[in-house]
């Protein structure tokens, strides 16, 4: 409650300051999505168990966001965004941009560093499925605890600085870039074995080690005609995540997006290599190959298409998946089954639609077929999920 109150007070204070500033432009925007996830192939309540949400989050979830943008001058602007989700309020953005030219913009504050193409559309009002692609999942996937979500959650707001910019070569070719240094992901565990995404959203927004995570992105957009274009991008991020700066993580990504009139086709591939502390070999399910330190890799990819069928209806299709290679923690109770192996995979096939009742109010409907390489304790390797959501933007 205290954290929520502080965040709300920050937004209110910034809004008041913005009102008094000699701002050229102020823009307030928001979005609200209520999503219902039903998994009919599972018995009982997925949210039950010793650790709530062990398997997934079926039932209603809400995601809401309020954003204020202020153009203080031709060169200086500020953005503040607060979102509300499963874990309460989160400061998604609080940064200033100082733009010297289109090719050079300095960003400082709290923001999601430039990585991949999905991140720019991470708001629920900007994508038409109810949930995010698996590589960017942050809690809506089945077996989320076992897999520790996707490759990198989106959004992943962090404190730091970024220099970015873009340049057009004529009217048909655009290149943009970004380089940044941020706090990076964390784990304050005694023997860290993976990134602790929950610690990135904790109210104590302070790094657990003194070494920043660095990263970069470059993308090329080429017009294919008057109303079509293609964007090809590459991203990378590298840093340490433990207190002693001994364990590294490196994330690489590549993306291709086609825009052919109103049809969008998007593909992304991400891979993360994460070192883990294997000092205590008894923590692990498999024999520890290298005492002291080992690593696992997690790959993720998706391909999706959005095809407008009419002014108000879009047809959506997506195939996404995750592939993990490496050791993993064994369960605390020997009778429990951990649905992982040295090589494990998830494939998900989604089909859906989006219907705009009117401008700013949509219904999202989709169904998902999940295929897991490993059986859970009920023997499942296949599940079905159904999403129904309403989203409003203003």
């Amino acid at each position, binding site marked *: 409650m205290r954290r929520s109150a502080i965040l709300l007070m920050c937004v209110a204070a910034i809004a008041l300051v913005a009102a008094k500033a000699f701002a050229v432009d102020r823009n307030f925007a928001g979005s609200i999505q209520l999503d219902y996830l039903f998994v009919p192939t599972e018995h009982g309540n997925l949210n039950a168990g010793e650790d709530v949400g062990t398997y997934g989050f079926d039932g209603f979830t809400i995601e809401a966001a309020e954003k204020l943008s202020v153009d203080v001058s031709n060169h200086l602007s500020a953005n503040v965004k607060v979102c509300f989700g499963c874990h309460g309020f989160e400061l998604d953005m609080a940064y200033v941009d100082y733009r010297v030219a289109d090719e050079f913009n300095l960003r400082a504050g709290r923001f999601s560093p430039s990585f991949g193409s999905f991140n720019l*559309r991470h708001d629920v009002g900007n994508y038409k499925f109810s949930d995010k692609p698996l590589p960017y999942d942050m809690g809506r996937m089945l077996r989320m605890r076992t897999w520790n979500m996707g490759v990198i959650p989106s959004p992943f707001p962090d404190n730091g600085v970024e220099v970015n910019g*873009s340049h057009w070569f004529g009217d048909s070719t655009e290149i943009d870039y970004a380089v940044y240094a941020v706090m990076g992901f964390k784990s304050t565990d005694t023997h860290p074995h993976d990134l602790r995404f929950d610690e990135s959203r904790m109210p104590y927004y302070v790094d657990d080690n003194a070494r920043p995570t660095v990263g970069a992105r470059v993308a090329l*957009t080429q017009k294919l005609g008057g109303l079509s274009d293609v964007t090809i991008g590459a991203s990378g991020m590298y840093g340490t995540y433990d207190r002693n700066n001994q364990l590294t993580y490196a994330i690489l990504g590549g993306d291709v997006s086609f825009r052919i009139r109103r049809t969008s086709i998007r593909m992304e591939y991400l891979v993360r290599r994460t070192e883990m502390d294997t000092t205590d070999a008894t923590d692990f399910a498999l024999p520890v190959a290298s005492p002291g330190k080992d690593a696992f890799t997690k790959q993720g990819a998706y391909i999706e298409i959005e095809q407008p069928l009419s*002014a108000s209806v879009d047809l959506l299709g997506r195939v996404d998946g995750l592939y993990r290679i490496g050791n993993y923690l064994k369960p605390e109770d020997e009778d429990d089954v951990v649905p992982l192996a040295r090589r494990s995979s998830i494939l998900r096939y989604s*089909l859906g639609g989006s*219907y705009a*009742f009117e*401008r700013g109010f*949509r219904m999202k409907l989709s169904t998902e077929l999940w295929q897991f390489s490993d059986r859970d304790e009920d*023997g499942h390797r296949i599940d079905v999920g159904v999403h129904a959501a309403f989203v409003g933007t203003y």
Partner: protein
Amino acid sequence: MTERPSERTWRPSGAKLVPWVFVALVVSTILVVACSGGRGEGVDVAALPEDVRPEYQLFSVRCSKCHSLARPLQSGITDDAYWAIYVERMRRQPSSGIAPSDVPPILAFLHYFSQEQLARRGGS
């Protein structure tokens, strides 16, 4: 070592049809609503003057790459100077695909749209 449940414990006969039943439900629902019309998030092209339609077409493609058309059309902005700043900010977004030469026709449509909005407000 715990014996794993057999496939039989969760997959009764006919259960393999479950995914396809849901796919069929979703597809049929989409087709039904697709045929039912609806206002959509953009502008009714048929109601636009002929000379504004190409500008709207460009706006509707360029300005829906990262977000829905509801974002700009619901923003409440009716001032041309504000639009110029707004569109410039969007043009500078990474991989926006909005070339400098796209800006004048997009602004021309937004000017038309703003005038319509102002006229509607004045008339209500």
